[in-house]
């Protein structure tokens, strides 16, 4: 059942929006694009101060015991303001893997730090287009990891990573400290994502879950993250739709606001449709956590949110004309983010297959 937000949830949305609008702006984000490995410290400090890092983790380990709905609301606002670091989602994924599949000792060791934000987590599952490869390029021997996990979001700054690896021909989710691991920065079109290739060479690691269950576990973690990312994408798309609208009512051509031309107004109305469909799917998916159809709902949210953000980025720039492609106006910050978020946690190609497998009864 889709939900209506309650007063507390509405307050989370309002307050996080207020704080982020005050503390993150494009003039601080633009320089981050031209350096590799730097993120917006003001954003991450805010996330810690506000308790967003603790939001969806259990109380026993310093969390606030809220869930996807609340973290989704934060992510939506982070998407609107262009979050300055990827760790809300990456740490959340790592923390959920430990919470759901780890031992008490592992939970006790890592969750309090992840909840406070003092520890940053990353998730290293994908290889190329394959968000959950049949044969992951990292091997696990029961105690150590070997091999390279490429393009890990947050990998440059993370303290720990949950890695989808192979152990004797079967999949395993392994937890590794990144201190001793060689990390090579990936200069990216969206540099504040702190993307790194992780070169594991006999790196100590512990199994969280192994065997057939590991693939399902990894998909579940991806789905949880995908719902958060979908909220972030929807927030970004919503912001772009509003920017396009504001520009179309002020910019004039041929003696009238360009928003009076149907080619412009219909484009923006179509964006409204994409944003509302994505929002509706996000709210629904967040409310389905723990239900049988959660992965299906997550996939739908992910697909519609990616579509909304990519389309909004494309059309908002187009509606602006020449000014839209300048560095200074910063619309490219959203264009870049739309693409990095589209790829993190698996692209549409991956989620389309996940979804159709479920709809056609090919997946359990």
């Amino acid at each position, binding site marked *: *059942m*889709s*939900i*209506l937000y309650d007063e507390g949830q509405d307050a989370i949305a309002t307050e996080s929006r207020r704080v982020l609008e005050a503390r993150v702006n494009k003039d601080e984000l633009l320089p981050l694009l031209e350096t590799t490995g730097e993120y917006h410290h003001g954003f991450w400090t805010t996330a810690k101060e506000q308790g967003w890092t603790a939001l969806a983790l259990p109380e026993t380990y310093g969390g606030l015991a809220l869930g996807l709905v609340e973290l989704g609301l934060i992510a939506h606002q982070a998407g609107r303001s262009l979050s300055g670091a990827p760790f809300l989602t990456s740490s959340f994924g790592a923390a959920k893997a430990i919470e759901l599949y780890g031992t008490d000792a592992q939970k006790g060791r890592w969750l309090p730090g992840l909840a406070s934000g003092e520890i940053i987590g990353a998730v290293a599952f994908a290889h190329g287009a394959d968000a959950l490869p049949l044969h992951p390029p990292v091997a696990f021997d029961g105690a150590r990891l070997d091999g390279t996990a490429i393009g890990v979001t947050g990998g440059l700054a993370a303290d720990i990573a949950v890695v989808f690896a192979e152990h004797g021909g079967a999949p395993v989710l392994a937890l590794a400290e990144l201190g001793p691991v060689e990390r090579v920065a990936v200069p990216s079109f969206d540099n504040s994502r702190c993307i790194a290739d992780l070169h594991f060479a006999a790196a100590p690691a512990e199994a969280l879950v192994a065997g057939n269950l590991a693939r399902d576990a990894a998909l579940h973690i991806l789905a949880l993250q995908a719902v958060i990312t979908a909220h972030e994408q929807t927030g970004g798309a919503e912001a772009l*739709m509003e920017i396009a*609208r504001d520009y*179309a*009512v002020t910019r004039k051509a041929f003696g*009238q*606001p360009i*928003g*009076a031309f*149907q080619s*412009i*107004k*219909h484009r*923006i*109305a*179509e964006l*409204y*449709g994409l944003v*509302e*469909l*994505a*929002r*509706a*799917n996000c*709210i*629904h998916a967040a409310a389905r956590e723990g239900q049988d159809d959660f992965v299906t*709902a997550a*996939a*739908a*949210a992910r*697909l*519609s949110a990616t*579509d909304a953000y990519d389309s909004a980025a494309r059309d908002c720039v187009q509606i602006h004309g020449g000014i839209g492609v300048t560095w200074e106006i910063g619309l490219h910050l959203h264009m870049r983010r739309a693409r990095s978020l589209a790829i993190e946690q698996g692209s549409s190609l991956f*989620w*389309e*297959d996940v*979804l*159709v497998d479920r*709809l*056609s009864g*090919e997946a359990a």
Partner: protein
Amino acid sequence: MSDLEAYRAKAAAWCEAMVPEFGKAARKGLSVEEDLALGRRYQKAKFDAGFAGINWPTDLGGQGLGHLEKITFEGEEMKHGFPNVYFGISLGMPVPVLMQFGSDREFVRERVLNALKGEEIWCQLFSEPSGGTDLAGLRTRAETDGNGWKINGQKVWTSWAQYSDYGVIVVRTDPTVPKHKGLTYFWVDMKAPGVTVRPIKLAGGDSHVNEVFFDDVKVSDDHRMSPVGGGFAVAIATLMIERYVATDSAGFGPHLDLFIELAKDVQLNGKPAIEDGRIRQQIARNYAMRAGLDSINRRARLMMQAGMTPGPEGSLNKLVAVRSRQKLSELALDLQGNAAFAFDEHASPKDDWASSWINAPTGRIAGGSDETLLNTIAERILGLPQDHRPDKGIPFNQIPA
């Protein structure tokens, strides 16, 4: 179980019980006239069971319940393909407007009861050959005639006019003022002298819409349902009724499950089509879109239950759902290849891809075209400017033709 769930269960049970007499199988092979007769019996059964006029006042024959009960019943009813289509417009708009604006209350009560029992049908005479979207640009005129009025002109796209007993009509009573200000709203007797109804055969082969001609049709002043010159406001009130009807994220075409079944059944390149990436992508995209609409609709219901006004995003359903139904229907025909040529013009658009495809354009035009809906979203929700309208503020008879 909540009261509403109990109501749903009751509605579902009644609908199930009606299937043998009024369901799809019972309608198969009937002529339109036979199907209409069956429809009248169905509507009477609905009235007798207390499922007609669910949210209408009891003193007019309704049940005095809420909008939620009404859409709950409709959600159950639409699963079975009952012959209720003939009464959709009648009970959806003209009759509620009559209840609201009709001056002779005894006459109103009699008409409402007869309409609820399926004995009388009302139509809505708005669109004209010169325009449908531009409602206020209509040309059919009424001139004073003794104590009453005399109507001349032509309406078009009038659903079920050929079976209608009465209609509501907007006409121009003053061409010397700007177009919105010279309109007046009446009800008319469709059997009156001078009214000629001519069915229009549509592309899909059926003829539920009509041209209606008015030649010196006399109506007395007590047929008037608005102040003279105040007809546009009542016309808009008519169109605003039922903004939250039972919606269908399949765009009143086949359910996505039927597409998935088809994709499992047919082969592409020697493999089941469900394994083909192009087909999978369309299934996934359509599912995500429909799931979004379903979520919007469920939240609208929850908001109504909580006494709140649902958000404007409910207006997306028709735009998004019918458009995608059209494309998915094309793809479903592609999937069948030359096995798709066989065509049954009496098949239902709800479960037949060819019927869904050929009738889809109607869904994108009737009741607000895609373009009109986009304009409404842009202007009303997003605050974008109106289109350039050269006829604005100019007396109707001075607008360049």
